[in-house]
């Protein structure tokens, strides 16, 4: 009997997700590379600059951004709502993390991920003897 009570209490204390979760959406991205940097562009319509979060951690680049929707009035149709754009990428360790640059324009997030000096191709000069 005691054990049954235990089950009951356990059931009650199971964490129930009460807060309505924001929908997580993977943004579409383009990724380019040249000798100096990796360039990433992601569609994140409706996101304000201060709601973007870019993190590079141990070879993983995580981009997350929240899009808020303020709509008052009587909805006729709603195809999108508040959402969190989130996507992670594996990036080489050779990214100069402290030099990563982000821009946000027209709902497109552009990330410049410069390669560290040691990872860039080096031109070797042949010395005349």
């Amino acid at each position, binding site marked *: 009997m005691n054990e049954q009570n235990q089950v009951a209490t356990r059931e009650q204390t199971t964490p129930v997700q009460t807060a309505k979760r924001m929908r997580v959406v993977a943004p579409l991205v383009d990724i*380019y590379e040249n000798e100096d940097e990796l360039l990433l*562009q992601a569609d994140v*319509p409706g996101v*304000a600059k201060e709601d973007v979060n870019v993190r590079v951690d141990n070879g993983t680049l995580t981009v997350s951004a929240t899009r808020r929707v303020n709509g008052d009035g009587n909805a006729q149709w709603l195809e*999108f709502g508040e959402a969190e754009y989130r996507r992670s990428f594996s990036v080489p360790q050779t990214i100069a993390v402290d030099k990563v640059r982000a821009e946000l324009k027209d709902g497109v997030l552009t990330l410049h991920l410069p390669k560290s000096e040691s990872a860039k191709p080096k031109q070797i000069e042949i010395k005349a003897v």
Partner: protein
Amino acid sequence: MWNNWNEVDRMFGAMNVLRNHFNNLNSDFERPLGVNFGWRNMDRTPLTNMVDNGDHLQIVAEVPGMSKDDLNIKIQGNYLEIGGKREVKAPEGYRVHRSERGATSFTRSFTLPSEINVEKVEASLESGMLTLTLPKAEAARAKQITIN
């Protein structure tokens, strides 16, 4: 046997986690028009919201990466058409690793629930969202009726 009670308890815990997980899945499926979870909008027509504010309608559309010159909005009576195009070019001198965004062009048309005062329509574009404010024609507005 009761010494193993922790095991059973843990199993129940795991089942609850699983159940919550499925519940969450379900809630995503059941959302009206919200089925495009994760990889979405691959047909590249912009998603829109429309609200009725009494004296005007407001339509918001997702148009990332488009400038105002790329968009084309037409209204006639209660017929609205939004068209747009976007060119995505790989920047000069870069190799392409992944290309999902792509160039797109679209037109989407709507039949609005009421006549619109075409002269007073306003459109604004901010951070990839196009907002159209469409004041209703005088005849279509809600009228206050006083009771005699």
